[in-house]
């Protein structure tokens, strides 16, 4: 067993509760297959050496968590600090409730079907503490914001797990605000299940700091349901997001709009997959990465249309700006099409800011810095074109502006 496995998943006695069996099953998978490495196709661009170098020895502070950051729009806040939620501090709007997860909520078969490659999802299960389930029964107007923070000197490893269930015809705006801190590991799993005709607007605003921030998200979309993600990520020491949207029934729709603005030595690795299991279904994906300084941006977008999912339509577009000679962009937009009556397309570009545009802005009196910032912002903000105007859009764009 590798040293990393020993550190992250020591074969210590596991707590005895409803999850014991699942934990031990996950532990076995991990012991057998270990962690991915450079030659693992899905991890070839993510240097896990960073995680290997960390001790994850720090003990977690059990004191009162700091107050979550204030948000400029009306919302209900669920605060997760160092991987823990204090339910007593949580006030949810009518139609939404937060309960503890039970073993039956975990779809281990799906994890098995994905194979041992999702090592961090298995690790999450192997070290699972208190998981949470957010149930939404009706159309909830007020956005629910899940704020995830860790201490500035956080050096441990936490494995939070959140499930979100939307009842038929329900609606939710779920905002994830994630801010990293110390050099630990935040290895989260997010499992979203959407019933018929439900709608979910899922916004993510993240800056990982020194924390290795890994999130494994799965969204299952039922008939007539509509999932839309809007992501703004500033990256961190190591940020890895797996986001899989499975369109499981007719007229399901899925969309991912994301932008990563990277500076310093930031690294993000986005692995998204949109799977059309039935037609008619529709999906759309737009992703932008802006990499400056010594940053690395990775985007692997996969569109799968399975046999028989006729009348599926999908388009993907990824644009990248390489802004410094030490930055790197690796992108792989994949199409895997097994049905005939479909349309699928992708486009990918890597380039730099247009000198003519910059010259024009300079001639209008903007400084070099302002001109560059404006062009970067314009390039990045285009991914939020499909987001309805309102306080949430304003806030996301404002955050983006401060990063561009």
């Amino acid at each position, binding site marked *: 067993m590798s040293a990393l496995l020993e550190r992250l998943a020591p074969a210590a006695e596991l707590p005895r509760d409803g999850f014991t069996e699942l934990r031990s099953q996950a532990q076995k998978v991990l012991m057998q297959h270990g962690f991915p490495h450079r030659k693992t196709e899905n991890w070839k661009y993510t240097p896990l050496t960073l995680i290997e170098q960390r001790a994850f020895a720090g003990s977690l502070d059990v004191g009162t968590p700091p107050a979550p950051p204030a948000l400029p729009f009306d919302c209900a806040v669920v605060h997760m600090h160092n991987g823990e939620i204090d339910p007593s501090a949580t006030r949810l709007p009518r139609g939404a409730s937060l309960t503890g997860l039970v073993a039956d909520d975990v779809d281990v078969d799906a994890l098995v079907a994905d194979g041992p490659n999702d090592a961090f999802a298995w690790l999450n299960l192997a070290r699972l503490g208190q998981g949470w389930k957010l149930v939404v029964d009706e159309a909830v107007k007020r956005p629910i914001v899940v704020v995830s923070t860790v201490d500035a000197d956080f050096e441990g490893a936490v494995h939070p797990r959140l499930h979100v269930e939307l009842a038929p015809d329900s609606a939710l705006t779920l905002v994830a605000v994630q801010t990293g801190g110390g050099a630990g590991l935040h290895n989260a799993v997010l499992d979203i299940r959407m019933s018929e005709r439900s709608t979910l607007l899922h916004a993510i605003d993240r800056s990982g700091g020194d924390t290795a921030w890994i999130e494994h998200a799965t969204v299952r979309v039922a008939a007539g349901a509509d999932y839309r993600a809007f992501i703004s990520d500033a990256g961190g020491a190591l940020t890895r997001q797996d986001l899989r949207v499975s369109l499981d029934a007719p007229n399901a729709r899925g969309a991912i709009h994301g932008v990563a603005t990277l500076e310093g030595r930031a690294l993000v690795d986005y692995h998204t997959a949109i799977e059309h299991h039935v037609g008619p279904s529709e999906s759309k994906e737009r992703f932008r990465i802006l990499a400056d300084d010594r940053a690395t941006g990775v985007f692997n977008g996969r569109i799968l249309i399975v046999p028989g999912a006729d009348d599926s339509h999908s388009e993907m577009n990824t644009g990248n700006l*390489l802004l410094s000679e030490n930055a790197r962009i690796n992108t792989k937009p994949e*199409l895997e099409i097994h049905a*005939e009556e479909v*349309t699928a397309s992708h486009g990918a570009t890597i380039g730099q800011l247009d000198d003519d545009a910059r010259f024009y802005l300079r001639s209008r009196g903007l400084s070099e810095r302002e001109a560059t910032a404006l062009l970067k912002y314009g390039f990045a903000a285009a991914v939020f074109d499909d987001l309805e105007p309102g306080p949430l859009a304003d806030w996301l764009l404002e955050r983006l502006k401060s990063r561009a």
Partner: protein
Amino acid sequence: MNQPQTQTQTQQQVDQLIQSRYKAGFYTDIESETVGAGLNEEIIAMISAKKNEPEWMLEWRLEAFHHWQTMVGPDWAKLNLPAIDFQKIHYYAAPKQKDRPKSLDDVDPKLLETFDKLGVPLHERARLAGVAVDAVFDSVSVGTTFQKELKEAGVIFCSFSEAVQEYPDLVREYLGSVVPYRDNYFACLNSAVFSDGSFVYIPKDTKCPMELSTYFRINARDTGQFERTLIIAEPGSEVSYLEGCTAPMRDENQLHAAVVELVAQEKAKIKYSTVQNWYPGDENGKGGIYNFVTKRGDCRGDDSRISWTQVETGSAITWKYPSCVLRGDRSAGEFYSVALTHNHQQADTGTKMIHLGKNTTSKIISKGISAGKSSNSYRGLVRVAKKAEGARNYTQCDSLLIGKTCGAHTFPYIESANPTARIEHEATTSRIGEDQLFYCQSRGLDEEEAVALIVDGFCKEVFKELPMEFAVEAKALLEISLEGAVG
């Protein structure tokens, strides 16, 4: 009309139809010399001895073999690849002949007839066609045309075995310099057991006076074909090279693992065109060739250019990524490809463009057509290294689906480490438009003709890169391969 006659006629029609689908599927009954099945040092030494190779060549083969024994086969391609028993394959098969023929007049007429049947101009027709041909039958080259005329121009075009004898220094300098034997599993296997192939050397500032062509034919049963092609274009030289291949129809699978190395020095141009028509297997996926080929061009000099054009209609399984290493400043790489899969064929093919020099450019046009129960994947890599200032790439890969049970996949890897590089990639997947079909049919074409016309238009950008005779052949091949794909 009486009943039995009708039956005979029908049978004839069926036979004709089968023949027309894969015209090259006949077998030539010729006495041949085959070494025993299996792969070990003795077999490799035997192949080397048969070719009367120098010591260093055998050493190189054995080094490759030892390395191959430490390797595992690739599993990353989107292919359903049955395990291959490498000990069951005969690694050498050659038509029996006492000495190597001095001229084409000495070549066994049966062999000439075979190539004649395949439309390869080896003999008197060669003069009319004006293309120099090296014909490779199983493991050996049986003849190369126009050698005298080429020699006058200073061009060397001969079989690989001959080159090892006649030009050992050139072979030693360049062999494995583009595709080292450690490169990958099948290239490594090829390095150990390759039996023949073509060798081309174009001297400085020379434009090769005619198109060069190699025709590969697998004939013997249970054999593999492992040929190696090496083309060296000295500064300022230019060559266009064509490659064709066929095999008899058989129920078992046969392995073809080739290596092609191209070296383009300063301002040299190499154009390499392939029409690959190995036996694809029958409509139930029985038989066919496993085509696992490593092709790579090295643009070593500034302003050099390498262009790959391929039309892939054959083979049960294709695993092939003709690549360009753009080392010289302002060097250019091109890749034009049509890959068609039908019935149970599988293809995982594409290209790699590695930009190392400044202001290097590359262009990739890939057209995939899937029909029947086949699977067709484009896999490509565009990598811009840190020092490749001003690199430029344009990629377009389109897939066309015909039928509900086939698959079309695209896996483009794009890696950029230079902020002045510009990379564009576009891909689409769709079926043949009903309105297009309807329009063609309203103009009097039947459905099959309409599909052929649309497919031809879909592939136009690639066909126009092919030399004329090849373009005509490619178009005809595509039409034949698509027969029965609609309706």
